[in-house]
């Protein structure tokens, strides 16, 4: 039987990492639900099965809507997965879980109770559709449903918004099949006076609202403005009710509720919210106009198709679902507000002139003046302002989607170009017929080739920011679930890595962040206080370029690694003997053993013991390395080192005997011919060379690589000082030159070979090996054959 808890956990992580707009990733989540569904069936757990179904439908809807406004749905999926984790991984009872979505399935009633007069879209939702439908591609019959269900769950607890409400479908705008609301506005003769007053008052209120909304746009924190708009709606609602204008009352009520939530800080006044409130104000103005008209003709009836959709949008906004804010597109950051409005047709030139005059007199901002004078609606001004802001603050760079394969091909070709160009250069020099014009042209060619190649390399580089941001989501999620307070900070999120590396670093980072939160950080904020730390734990994610590598570090100020616990566990697993004494580094490295975990219990967060060894393998497959620093009680730092996967690098070609090797220039500090005085030898550390105030270990490539070289004494050769996990001096016979080289992988059979990071195709067409200093150090330390296959195996 497949390991369902494991599947659930993997999927939960994937859910957190998935971008709601990434259709393929969301669809993938959907497919991966299947084993869980099957398991629920086997367990005959109808409620869980129902949850799976809701989850699948929500995912389908997200895909269909391409993620627009679907953050709420995604968070529902996240909630469902939390439920799975608690129930499936931790064995809690379903009813213990306090989430609205659980009430849906346990109480059962809301499921089958679909709103009575629904549109066609909801007919099929009453009975949970057959499971075959669940996982087919055809999402259409059910795509309106899931959002509805969640609506019900949330709406249950909150206000009586659904009272007397008309049909509730989630996609109000496109719903042309429903009959428009028939608005009836009657004014009896005896009410005429009151109504006239009401109309005047309401118009004033609505105008004020406009202005207040405009100022809120600039300053969303302006609580007075919020209050003012709230009061406006409240008053209109009251009077409309008194005058028995039910539709107007209803609209005012919805709008007022929304404003109330903002007032109470249950909702933030974001752009999407302001749009729908502006619309409400406009609609109310319309209706007031109708009332005014009704004054003269006694009664006025009209069909308004936009009424109900607006109500629906108001309710959706109250649930936190707002569509993206509308803005006028502004193509140049230098456009002024007036220009934008005139260009978009919302404002007349003449009026603009007039407004300038007014503005000069009053000193008010142009936008306000325009609205006050009635030249343009507040909403339009807001939209224009948004557009202006977007074009200025966003370095909205135009981007083009490029097929990744083509990019790779292009980079390969660029590599060939570099080689060919090198060859030409070499030949020109060799032939000796280097005339000045030829040299000049070759120089020019060289320069262009270099630029091209840098450009090519940079195409594949993307910032690590999105990965870090996903970590932010993860941390928020985890800290909510565990009750620990955690603050996450980033350094270097703009650091760029090769695209393929960024894709693959996500998973290991997730594991490590989880570990940090689960094991590293103290169990409760109180524990931290008791330890003399701040209540809120700090986790910092760093990305830095250094020496041809990129370092990604996760640092926490938690408990640090527990030496004793790790040692004890290792003894238990017979990885070490009780009497062994291990260095800190060795203890830390123990946690990378498969199945190793010192967690007392397995939580849904981590502790299954599958984490760190997988992390290590993933990182090593990226030709990287992971290192741990930790101080008990103070915290830990996990450090990942990755090579910048550059296809073309600058390299120094050196000779050792008959062998040619390449050392990446980025790693080289300096090359020198040592003097005897600089050389020394220490029994435990081997040969040393004095450089820049330090004694640096000398590595004879002849011995490390087992090749024959010429220089017997370092003074006879050249020492190349390289920086890579500390400094080392590599002893070579001769430096042959510096050149651009194309890195090629050594092929599957040699990929694991220590000491080389790849092969370089030289101008003469032969292959040279690119040295990997870290690997050489390890080879030197081991002093044993590089691979077991040097020892022939006996076969009977």
């Amino acid at each position, binding site marked *: 039987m497949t390991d369902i808890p494991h599947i659930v956990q993997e999927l939960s992580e994937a859910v957190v990492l998935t971008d709601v707009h990434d259709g393929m990733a969301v669809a993938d989540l959907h497919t991966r639900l299947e084993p869980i569904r099957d398991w629920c069936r086997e367990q005959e757990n109808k409620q869980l099965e129902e949850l799976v179904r809701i989850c699948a439908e929500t995912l389908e809807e997200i895909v269909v809507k391409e993620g627009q406004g679907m953050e709420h749905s995604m968070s529902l999926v996240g909630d469902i997965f939390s439920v799975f984790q608690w129930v499936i991984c931790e064995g809690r009872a379903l009813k213990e879980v306090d989430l609205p979505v659980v009430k849906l399935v346990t109480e059962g009633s809301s499921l089958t109770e679909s709103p009575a007069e629904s549109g066609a879209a909801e007919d099929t939702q009453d009975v949970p559709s057959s499971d075959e439908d669940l996982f087919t591609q055809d999402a259409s019959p059910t795509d309106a449903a899931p959002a509805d269900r969640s609506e019900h769950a949330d709406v249950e607890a909150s206000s009586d918004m659904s009272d007397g409400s008309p049909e509730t479908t989630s996609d109000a705008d496109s719903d042309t099949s429903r009959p428009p609301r028939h608005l009836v506005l009657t004014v009896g003769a005896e009410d005429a006076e009151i109504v006239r007053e009401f109309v005047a008052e309401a118009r004033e209120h609505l105008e004020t609202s406009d202005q207040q909304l405009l100022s809120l746009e600039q300053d969303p924190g302006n609580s007075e403005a919020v209050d003012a708009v709230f009061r406006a709606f409240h008053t209109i609602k009251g009077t409309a009710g008194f005058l028995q204008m039910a539709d107007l009352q209803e609209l005012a009520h919805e709008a007022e509720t929304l404003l109330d939530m903002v007032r109470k800080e249950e909702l933030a006044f974001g752009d999407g919210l302001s749009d729908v409130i502006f619309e409400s104000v406009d609609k109310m103005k319309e209706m007031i106009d109708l009332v005014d008209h009704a004054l003269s003709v006694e009664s006025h009836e009209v069909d308004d198709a936009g009424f109900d959709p607006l109500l629906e949008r108001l309710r959706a906004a109250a649930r936190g679902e707002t569509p993206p804010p509308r803005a006028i597109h502004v193509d140049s950051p230098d456009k002024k507000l007036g220009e934008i409005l005139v260009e978009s047709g919302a404002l007349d030139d003449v009026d603009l002139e007039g407004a300038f005059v007014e503005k000069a007199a009053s000193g008010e901002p142009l936008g306000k003046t325009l609205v006050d004078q009635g030249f343009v609606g507040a909403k339009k001004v807001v939209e224009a302002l948004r557009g202006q802001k977007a074009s200025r603050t966003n370095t909205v760079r135009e981007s083009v989607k490029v097929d990744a394969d083509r990019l790779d091909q292009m980079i*390969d070709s660029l*590599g*060939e170009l570099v*080689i060919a160009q090198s060859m030409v250069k070499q030949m020109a020099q060799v032939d000796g017929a280097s005339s000045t014009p030829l040299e000049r042209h070759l120089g020019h060619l060289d320069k262009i080739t270099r630029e091209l190649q840098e450009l090519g390399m940079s195409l594949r580089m993307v910032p690590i920011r999105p990965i870090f941001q996903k970590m932010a989501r993860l941390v928020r999620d985890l800290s909510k679930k565990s009750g620990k307070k955690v603050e996450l900070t980033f350094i270097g999120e703009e650091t760029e890595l090769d695209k393929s590396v960024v894709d693959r670093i996500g998973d290991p980072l997730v594991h490590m962040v989880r570990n940090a939160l689960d094991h590293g950080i103290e169990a409760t904020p109180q524990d931290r206080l008791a330890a003399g730390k701040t209540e809120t734990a700090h986790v910092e994610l760093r990305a830095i370029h250094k020496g041809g590598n990129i370092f990604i570090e996760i640092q926490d100020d938690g408990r640090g690694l527990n030496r004793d616990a790790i040692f004890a566990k290792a003894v238990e697993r017979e990885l070490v003997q009780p009497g062994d004494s291990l260095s800190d580094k060795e203890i830390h490295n123990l946690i990378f053993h498969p199945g190793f975990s010192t967690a007392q219990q397995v939580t849904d967060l981590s502790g299954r013991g599958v984490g760190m060894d997988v992390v290590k393998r993933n990182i090593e497959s990226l030709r990287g390395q992971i290192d741990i620093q930790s101080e008990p009680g103070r915290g830990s730092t996990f450090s990942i080192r990755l090579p910048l996967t550059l296809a073309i690098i600058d390299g120094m070609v050196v000779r050792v005997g008959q*062998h*040619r090797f390449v050392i990446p220039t980025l790693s080289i500090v300096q090359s020198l011919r040592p003097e005897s005085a600089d050389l020394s030898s220490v029994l435990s550390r081997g040969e040393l060379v004095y450089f820049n105030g330090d004694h640096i270990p000398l590595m004879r490539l002849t011995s490390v*690589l*087992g*090749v024959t070289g010429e220089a017997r004494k370092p003074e006879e050769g050249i020492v190349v000082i390289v920086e890579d996990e500390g400094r080392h001096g590599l002893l070579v016979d001769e430096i042959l030159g510096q050149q651009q080289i194309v890195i*090629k*992988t*050594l*092929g*599957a*059979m*040699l990929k694991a*070979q*220590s*000491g*080389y990071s*790849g*092969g370089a*195709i030289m101008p003469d*067409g*032969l*292959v*040279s*090996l690119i040295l990997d200093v870290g690997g050489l150090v390890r*080879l030197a330390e081991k002093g044993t*054959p*590089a*691979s*077991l*296959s*040097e020892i*022939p*195996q*006996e*076969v*009977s």
Partner: protein
Amino acid sequence: MTQPQEPILDSTGNRLAGRYLTFLLGREEYGVPILNVREIIGLMDITPVPKAPEFIRGVINLRGKVITVLELRRKFGMEVVDDTSETCIIVVDTHRGEDEVQVGMLVDKVSEVLDVVSEDIDPPPRFGGDSETSFLLGTAKSRGGVKILLNVEEIVKSDEVVLFDARSNL
């Protein structure tokens, strides 16, 4: 034409009958499925890889790609001889794990492409446990003698020297 027999299958169920490129290592003749063969190149300068397993002669540049060259004699634990003018490299396409790889095999001399029919194939002799002989697909009788059919994927997959005494098995 004789009666159609049961097709002889290798351990992964693939039909063994087909065309093979045969070559010599010492006095023994071997064959690899032609479908695996990408090309044959004459001996060229090979860059040695220090500290790599003995049976890896080194790497070469094959049209911009770096290819590992296996010295089959060493891989099979045979006596090592000097290269001659007939020594060449057979470049094969195969898999190692999930990766597609191209590997060069250094052989004494390339013979011919041979059509091998099921009737002529004998399954590989067993020693005890599959691991030692998984790199053999079987043996094929042909007018010149017996050809030992090799499983390229297994040879490339293993990190070990594969010892077997060809003559004693026949």
